């Protein structure tokens, strides 16, 4: 069943939000993903695709109500997180799994020095005294390229890029086995983004940390990830290793995404956007959720839900074009 080489395995996971008066948002549907030791998986999708919800699902932090894990299992080091008690989960979070949240600027405490904030996490999860925790905090600051003697400064005394590095230092302070990073560089300028990505790659290699990197930027994925999962309206519609995704994308939505982005290395005259708009999350189209926008849609696409099909070893696509017995 579950593979020992994988640090985390997500099986048939579905997460819904039940919103009074509006209906059910199927934020994550039948998700199957795994991340190996030291591996980085990129989770890509546009607004509302279900990326953050997936991360909250792994952390067992989906707000309930309105959210609920309605189906599936999440194995972490061979054990199902969904059946863990709150006390067990608290131990895992921060110790073994840590998360960088989407809006990092709000995840720092403005009235605490950055050193104290890192030390606090260290103390919570490791048996160390206050002095040792501060020493560890200073070490972490150096690791993210901030001079240790600035540990007594407050967040507002740092630039945006430095604050983001502090957030990374906090997330890595306990040497987690899995780091979930939700759009960690989206708010940063490109030269600072380059600094931060460089740092994350470095630390990941040094500690052999596995990572789930959430982003909408296919450039960032090409830079950092080993594998990629593309999400659309709650579904992972394509999932494979990075090389295959960039050289042989198969799902019409993935192909549409590549057609939509200008590439600094190429001189395209015109973009090939995907037509239409994102669906209403409480009213996802029947059959394949992408069918109203899909240039390859067939009659059957509005009626039948595509299954996850392995078109080549390790290359999964959710599209009826690749299913047998579909005409």
């Amino acid at each position: 069943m579950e593979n020992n080489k994988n640090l985390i395995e997500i099986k048939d996971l579905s997460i819904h939000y039940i919103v009074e008066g509006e209906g059910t948002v199927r934020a994550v549907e039948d998700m199957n993903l795994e991340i190996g030791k030291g591996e980085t998986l990129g989770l890509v999708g546009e607004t509302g695709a279900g990326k953050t919800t997936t991360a909250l699902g792994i952390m067992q932090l989906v707000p309930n109500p309105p959210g609920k894990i309605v189906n599936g299992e999440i194995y972490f080091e061979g054990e199902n997180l969904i059946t863990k008690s709150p006390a067990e989960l608290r131990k895992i979070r921060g110790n073994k799994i840590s998360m960088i949240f989407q809006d990092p600027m709000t995840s720092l405490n403005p009235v605490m020095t950055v050193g104290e904030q890192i030390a606090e996490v260290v103390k919570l999860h490791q048996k160390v005294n206050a002095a040792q925790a501060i020493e560890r905090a200073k070490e972490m600051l150096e690791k993210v390229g901030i001079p240790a003697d600035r540990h007594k400064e407050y967040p507002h005394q740092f630039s945006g890029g430095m604050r983001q590095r502090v957030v990374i230092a906090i997330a890595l302070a306990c040497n987690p086995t899995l780091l979930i990073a939700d759009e960690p560089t989206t708010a940063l300028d490109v030269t600072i983004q380059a600094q931060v990505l460089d740092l994350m790659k470095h630390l990941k290699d040094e500690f052999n940390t596995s990572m789930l990197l959430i982003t909408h930027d296919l450039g960032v994925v090409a830079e950092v990830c080993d594998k990629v999962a593309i999400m659309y309206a709650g579904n992972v519609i394509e999932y494979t290793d990075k090389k295959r995704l960039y050289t042989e994308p198969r799902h019409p939505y993935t192909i549409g995404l590549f057609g939509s982005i200008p590439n600094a290395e190429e001189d395209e005259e015109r973009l090939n956007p995907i037509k239409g708009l994102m669906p209403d999350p409480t009213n996802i189209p029947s059959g394949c959720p992408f069918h109203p926008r899909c240039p390859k849609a067939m009659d059957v696409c509005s009626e039948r839900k595509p299954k996850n099909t392995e078109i080549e070893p390790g290359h999964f696509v959710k599209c009826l074009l690749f299913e047998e017995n579909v005409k």
Partner: protein
Amino acid sequence: MQERLLEVRNLKKYFSTKKGLLHAVDDVNFFINKGETLGLVGESGCGKSTTGRVVLRLLEATGGEIIFEDKDILQFSKDEMREMRKEMQIVFQDPFASLNPRMSVSEIIAEPLRVNKIYKDKIDMSKRVAELMDTVGLAERLVNTYPHELDGGRRQRIGIARALALKPKFIVQDEPVSALDVSIQAQILNLMDDLQKEFSLTYLFISHDLSVVKHVSDRIAVMYLGKIVELSDYKSMFKEPKHPYTQALLSAIPVPSIEVKRERIILEGDVPSPINPPEGCRFYGRCRYRQPICNEKTPELEDIGNDRFVACHFTNNLKEATV
């Protein structure tokens, strides 16, 4: 010979702040030819939006000249400027914040027509609004909806329709697609391209996204801390960036491809404060080619041939720093 629509000379915009004079735009020079797109790129706070607003006189310049069709619009009276505004429009980044939430789609698009008393007849005005909605790809049925009922892409289409209402020659696009998802962003970029051709529009396109700027621009100006450090046609710039900052900036672009591997230049340190900046090159503290003179004398934007302009004391002669 290409005709110039707009030329900006020694443009300055300083803000007084508690800590001193903030040099948001400091001695900026550029021109834009008719029908062309000049891209303006640079990192947060380098002065892009301020430049765009000062050029339209939505903010008053501290100094300099803004020559639009051979006339310095900084010398214009209020009335003259009101006439001139019809020629010069702006589209903002955040379509939501820039649209009045209490006005319907048709009211928003009609507003500039109403304010400038373009139509006496209400039916003519509605016809024009319908035409504009059609031009930007907004379905007729949305005419009485409100911005909050619409998605970001449609809201941006409203902003574009409003900017087109008075048939301008020139539009400042201030991060028009930065808030949009990529699939919608591509639709809007294509729309703006079509409109430019159809109505012979000239654009100043402001963005921090270098891939987008490269895609839309004929020429690109790179800004750093209130100054233009490099200006040239997009091809030469991407092929062979000259200024050390442009080199670092272009090397940092994440490219959605696994075939190209770029040599990345990781910049040390952070952007310095724009308040009372000292004499000397503003990139000095982060430049790996800096020399003693760079800290004493401000490099001017100089013509280095082939319509390329660079502000660096050591263009074509960069050597690793000795200081």
